[in-house]
């Protein structure tokens, strides 16, 4: 569209790892959307006769302890994971950026509260806090979303706040104020667009870590509950058969890693492509 943006785009597309990541993510999303058509078997179909079959032409990834087709469950698991993680990231980023910009732009009490909240909530390892929340609310998918989101928005708020703080010192903001623009207008038209690059990078990298968190909770048996197909809980179920049926553990883990890796590659590529001086992350 513009010289700056197209050059960023070129820079991004030149990064082979990032492009590969993008392709992987697009494939996974397609699989998630078209799961009903692609998956060879019904995920819930229990066929005890077929249980714990090693990979074959019929079942490319084998079958699990209840005789369900692992490949089909993996495909539906993609859907679960992407639904959850995109929902979490959409919620947290919107809310976090909103609060972050307000705190950074107006400073004062809101900023003070936000800063202390960040101090307090980030004083725990985030997975521990998620565990506590699930401990209070009980296991389940909704609670997983709540547990991850409750802390997750803070990362966005922190980055948005830091970026806003540096933007508000820019003279074009003062110029806009001198021109008589209202604060709301300035936040929307001036601060937000200039905040976005680091936020977009953060979103990409965050998608990866949210997927990891969801899988970790699933693995601990605190996230998605059986029989819902989910990568983490599939790993958990397969763990008992580690010695004799390693495919039950290998494939779900591989998928998690692939998805996270892809998001990390995209995030790194974006970060390198966007002017590094604009970045305030870390």
């Amino acid at each position: 569209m513009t010289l700056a943006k197209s050059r960023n785009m070129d820079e991004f597309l030149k990064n082979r790892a990032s492009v590969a990541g993008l392709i992987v993510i697009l494939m996974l999303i397609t699989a998630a959307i078209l799961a009903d058509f692609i998956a060879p078997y019904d995920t819930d179909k229990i066929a005890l006769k077929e249980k714990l079959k090693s990979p074959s032409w019929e079942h490319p990834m084998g079958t699990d302890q209840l005789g369900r087709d692992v490949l089909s469950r993996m495909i539906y698991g993609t859907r679960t994971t992407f639904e959850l993680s995109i929902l979490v990231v959409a919620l947290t980023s919107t809310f976090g950026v909103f609060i972050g910009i307000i705190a950074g732009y107006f400073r004062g009490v809101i900023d003070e509260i936000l800063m202390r909240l960040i101090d307090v909530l980030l004083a725990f390892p985030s997975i521990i806090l998620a565990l506590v929340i699930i401990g209070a609310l009980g296991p389940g998918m909704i609670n997983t979303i709540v547990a991850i989101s409750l802390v997750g928005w803070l990362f966005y708020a922190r980055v948005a706040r830091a970026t806003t703080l540096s933007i508000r010192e820019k003279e074009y903001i003062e110029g806009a104020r001198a021109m008589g623009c209202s604060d709301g207008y300035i936040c929307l038209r001036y601060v937000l667009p200039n905040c976005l690059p680091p936020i977009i990078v953060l979103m990409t990298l965050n998608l990866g870590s949210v997927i990891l968190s969801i899988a970790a909770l699933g693995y601990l048996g605190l996230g998605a509950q059986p029989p819902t197909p989910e990568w983490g809980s599939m790993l958990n179920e397969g763990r008992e058969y580690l010695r004799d049926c390693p495919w039950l553990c290998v494939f779900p883990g591989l998928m998690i890693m692939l998805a996270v890796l892809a998001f990390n590659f995209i995030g790194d590529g974006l970060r390198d492509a966007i002017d590094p001086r604009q970045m305030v992350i870390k």
Partner: protein
Amino acid sequence: MASMRGVSFMLEVQGLKKTFTSGLVSKRSVKAVDGISFNIADGETFGLVGESGCGKTTVGRLVLRLIEPTEGKVIFNSIDVLKLNKKALRKLRPQMQIIFQDPESSLHPRMKIGDIIAEPLKLYNLVPKANREKKVLELIDMVGLQPEHVNRFPHELSGGQSQRVVLARVLALGPRFIVADEPTSSLDVSVQAQILSLMNTVQEEFHFSCLFISHDLNLISRMTSSMGVMYLGKIVEAGSTKELFEEARHPYTRALMSAIPIADPQTKRKKIVLEGEMPSPMNPPSGCRFHTRCRFKEKICEKTEPQLIDLGEGHRIACHLYAAEDKRLVIRHRVTVEI
């Protein structure tokens, strides 16, 4: 006192103060601007000169209420600016504008030049939508840019070009008063000359008053008709630019004047090289703030703060050497200077 000598003032500033406080527990406060008064006549350019950290930039922001003053009065075109509520202030904003030091960060990096210049027109609906593009092109031409610049982004322009865009946007609002805060300090001399002569041209055409803030006395002498010299948050000497350049009185002004770089190896001049550096505004010296670096320091300078007195013709000075009742000191100082 809108007209003291029959001159109507566009801007009157009286006893302007700003104290910045920081720290929640152990409050530290800095008196960045400490009681400043000056007037700017209609169409006139007033220069404010001083070294970095003297508070001159803050004055520019205070006058426009981009920073809220702690105390004082700012009367613009007979309107008491500091008494206005938010809404009334917004209505007044288009009439009082500012040009910043750093052209690169003065422009929204993700907006096209055309949109940047059109924004004020849209905001205040100054020009009907159909004519906006024409008006933008007019402004672009006026500041010496080409029509093709409309579709460019700020980072594609040079510093001088960016400053032209800033000027075009300011002019779009039709202001009566402009604060120019070191508008050329990040530009090369040849570009500086371009921008300043452009400013002179548009000032004649649009007839606005200007507060010209700079550290460069050469520019002040070229751009302004009257001026004030600031040191640590206070005006130490003010008057017509001509008079101050011909006969500066305050020891600080004299030192500044003698330190003006002259681009000629033949001109030999007795230089007054000030010793030491400006003290921190967090902890300003007692009495006269300049006494730590002043060659004519007396006992009184350490204890009592000199008041700004009028030497006539609007030449004001804050220095114990010129305390009206003590003529002896005045004479002594003159003698010292002549040697």
